[in-house]
């Protein structure tokens, strides 16, 4: 059978640097194809070439066997190729309905057919079980709703090939399942689907065929059923992948370094109490929207909050980020693109922004800055073509490493990391887990906020669970398992957990 769309020995160069080396790939109708690889392996570029966003430097693109070059993405779209980006391609100030029909509005003469568009939008959203109102502003939607809207929008175009760049990164497990149902339906209708994901269990669950890329080359392509998740991971990384999670240190229950009581973050969290010990990694679990992020931001002075905070046994008042930083309390945001990094600035400017090396108090010490960057690149294994690369042009994993390096510049003693591995590949994940564990080993205390259950289970010494702005319980050591966390997160099993002192602080 002729593939619907195929790449034949395609290479791509940016300036003098070749980033794709002779990629061949076949996408067939009625087949779900997973493209996996580490960040920077060339997945995004491959997809952009497939969708007509970027031309290939050499090689052929064949649509149903015919060599073709898409001059624009629109030309590709007209042939039934639709791509959903990792960064949403939505007009934030417009409504859901306006976005759904952006650029192809239904009209009667010069007038818009508002009612009809609203009706069709509702139908499409219902198809993906998205409950967003058609007249809600996209700006006000949650990330997962935005993703579902993007998917609904693509589905409404009756795509013959749907390309999705990490569609599940911001979705909850439930939403992911809804998406997969849609994907299966599309497959049954004879569409081709290509997606990337760092979640190999998802790949295993839905993909018919998997193509693995490493360093701009295809290293494996074959039926998904023939590989285990572990084999996929090893092929991506290109080496034996020992255990993803580092060994836990000997349960070092050091002194309490951070004690929080009755922390209220208006509108998001209330009555938060916790204790954090020296050398400990504490996980915070909970559904998206359970107030985890807001509680931590409130604790670090990033948003208005009230409560009692003690660091090293001393009561402290934290009103703004500098209050927290001066006491060694540092927060790494979950949103590296809009809160973490200045995407238009160089790595150097980013890495030192939180703690600029100075001379004479007001001047920047440029030599020290360069040294900081050198060290960051070495310590965190940041892979960028050149030093002058803008942060926005780094791959997600390298951005995350840069962000971590930046946060470490202020020498935190208590580090709160929010979704430290969202949207990054398994190799980088492993590096970040090692790094966090090393920090704990050096006597720092770490709080990890995460939606990835496996991450919390594999990495943390103790996990607290939040639900609707409150802490519903915690699990420790050997008791940390998915079931216990989910029950707490769903508000089912408060009594089952072993109560600890912190529990006295809530309810």
């Amino acid at each position, binding site marked *: 059978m002729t593939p619907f769309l195929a790449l034949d020995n395609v290479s791509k160069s940016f300036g003098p640097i070749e980033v794709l080396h002779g990629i061949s790939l076949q996408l067939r109708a009625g087949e779900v194809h997973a493209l996996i690889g580490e960040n920077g392996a060339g997945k995004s570029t491959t997809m952009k070439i497939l969708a007509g966003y970027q031309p290939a430097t050499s090689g052929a693109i064949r649509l149903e066997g015919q060599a073709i070059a898409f001059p624009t993405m629109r030309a590709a779209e007209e042939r039934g190729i639709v791509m959903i980006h990792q960064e949403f391609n939505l007009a934030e100030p417009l409504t859901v309905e306006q976005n759904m029909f952006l650029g192809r509005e239904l009209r009667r003469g010069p007038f818009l057919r508002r009612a009809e568009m609203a009706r069709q939008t509702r139908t499409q959203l219902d198809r993906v079980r998205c409950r967003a109102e058609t007249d809600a502003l996209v700006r006000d939607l949650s990330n997962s709703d935005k993703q579902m809207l993007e998917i609904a929008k693509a589905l409404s175009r009756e795509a013959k090939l749907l390309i999705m760049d990490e569609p599940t990164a911001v979705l909850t497990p439930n939403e992911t399942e809804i998406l997969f149902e849609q994907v299966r339906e599309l497959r049954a209708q004879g569409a081709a689907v290509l997606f990337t994901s760092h979640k190999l269990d998802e790949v295993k669950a839905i993909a018919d065929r998997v193509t693995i890329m490493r360093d701009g080359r295809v290293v494996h392509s074959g039926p998904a059923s023939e590989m285990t998740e572990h084999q996929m991971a090893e092929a991506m990384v290109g080496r034996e992948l020992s255990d993803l999670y580092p060994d836990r240190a000997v349960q070092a229950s050091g002194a309490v370094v951070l004690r929080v009581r009755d922390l209220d973050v208006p509108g998001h969290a209330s009555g938060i109490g916790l204790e954090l010990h020296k050398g400990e990694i504490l996980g915070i679990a909970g559904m998206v929207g359970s107030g985890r992020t807001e509680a931590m931001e409130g604790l670090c002075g990033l948003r208005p909050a009230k409560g009692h905070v003690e660091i090293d046994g001393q009561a402290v008042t934290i009103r703004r980020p500098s209050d927290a930083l001066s006491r060694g309390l540092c927060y790494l945001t979950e949103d590296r693109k809009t809160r973490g990094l200045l995407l238009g600035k160089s790595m150097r400017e980013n890495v030192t922004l939180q703690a600029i090396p100075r001379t004479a108090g*007001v001047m920047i010490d440029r030599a020290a800055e360069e040294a900081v960057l050198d060290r960051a690149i070495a310590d965190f294994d940041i892979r*960028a073509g050149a030093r002058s690369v803008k942060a926005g042009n780094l791959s997600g994993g390298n951005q995350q490493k840069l962000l971590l390096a930046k946060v470490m510049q202020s020498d935190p003693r208590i580090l709160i990391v929010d979704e430290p591995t969202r949207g990054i590949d398994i190799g980088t994940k492993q590096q970040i887990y090692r790094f966090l564990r090393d920090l704990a080993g050096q006597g720092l205390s770490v709080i990890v906020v995460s939606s990835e259950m496996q991450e919390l289970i594999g990495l943390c010494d103790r996990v607290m669970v939040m639900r609707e702005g409150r802490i519903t319980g915690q699990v420790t050591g050997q008791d940390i398992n998915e079931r216990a966390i989910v029950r707490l997160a769903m508000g089912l099993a408060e009594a089952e957990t072993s109560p600890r002192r912190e529990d006295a602080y809530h309810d």
Partner: protein
Amino acid sequence: MTDTAATAPARPSRRLPPMSVLGPVLALIILIAVGAMLNPNFLSYANISNVLSRSAFIGIIAVGMTFVITAGGLDLSVGSMAAFIAGLMILVMNAALPSLGVGLPVILLGIATALVAGLVAGLINGLLITRAGIEAFIVTLGAMGIYRSLVTWLADGGTLSLAFELRTFYRPVYYGGIMGVSWPIIVFIAVVILGEIFMSRGVFGRHVAATGASLEVAHYSNVNTNRVRLITYVVLGLLVGVATIMYVPRLGSASSTTGLLWELEAIAAVIIGGTVLKGGFGRVWGTVIGVLILSLIENILNLTDLVSPYLNGAVQGVIIILAVILQREGKTGK
């Protein structure tokens, strides 16, 4: 997309600077060449000195404006503010003349008045923008009207004039100088050097750029964005005061037409110089080039009969747009 190889610690190679850097410089050089071709007096000491001295007011203000715009702000009130401060200075100095007599104390009083008034005016703008959270455009548009009306009111619709004796004494601050370089030029250069150092080498400049690039990222990176923005407005107000100190001795008067359109000239100079209007990136040296381009166009038009005086504005407009086009790296808008 990035290369997958680990980042080489190599420093950037030496090549021709990019068009964003060359563009404004090139525009300035072309303008100078055209001027020199059209009129032999163009490059004379007197003409250069004239042009630089009168550029100094807008120039000093534009340096402050560079910081405000880089931090993502805007200030439309500077022209009116200058007029108001000039009027206030003249009133204060005239009022103090009988008790203090002609001499340095009166001048120092005037200077102090200008600096304090500028500082307060900038502070009011900044506080309304950062604390009350009102759009910079609205706050400074309002302030523009208020100061313009205030100076008209102070002058009773006419002109406020510095007492004649004082004018003679104060005059050298505009016309005098050291070794043939007039004071406005010296002050302008000093402000530019300080501004450039703080913008490109200072922690403050980095914070200003970060604030303009993304308020959120800056906030999450422990930059006190409200304070940074407030300081940019205060600095700008202070520099308006400095410019006024240079302006008043020139004609010894202030009226409702003083400082007319200075805000737009200052903003235009900043943008011509390569600072990004929506914030995040700014360079003081570029602003200086922008100021020079603007005043040289006017100078050349006055020195020649190339175009009808009615078309002066059109020529300026075309050159301003060209200067910005020159900066683009051959890429077209998406």
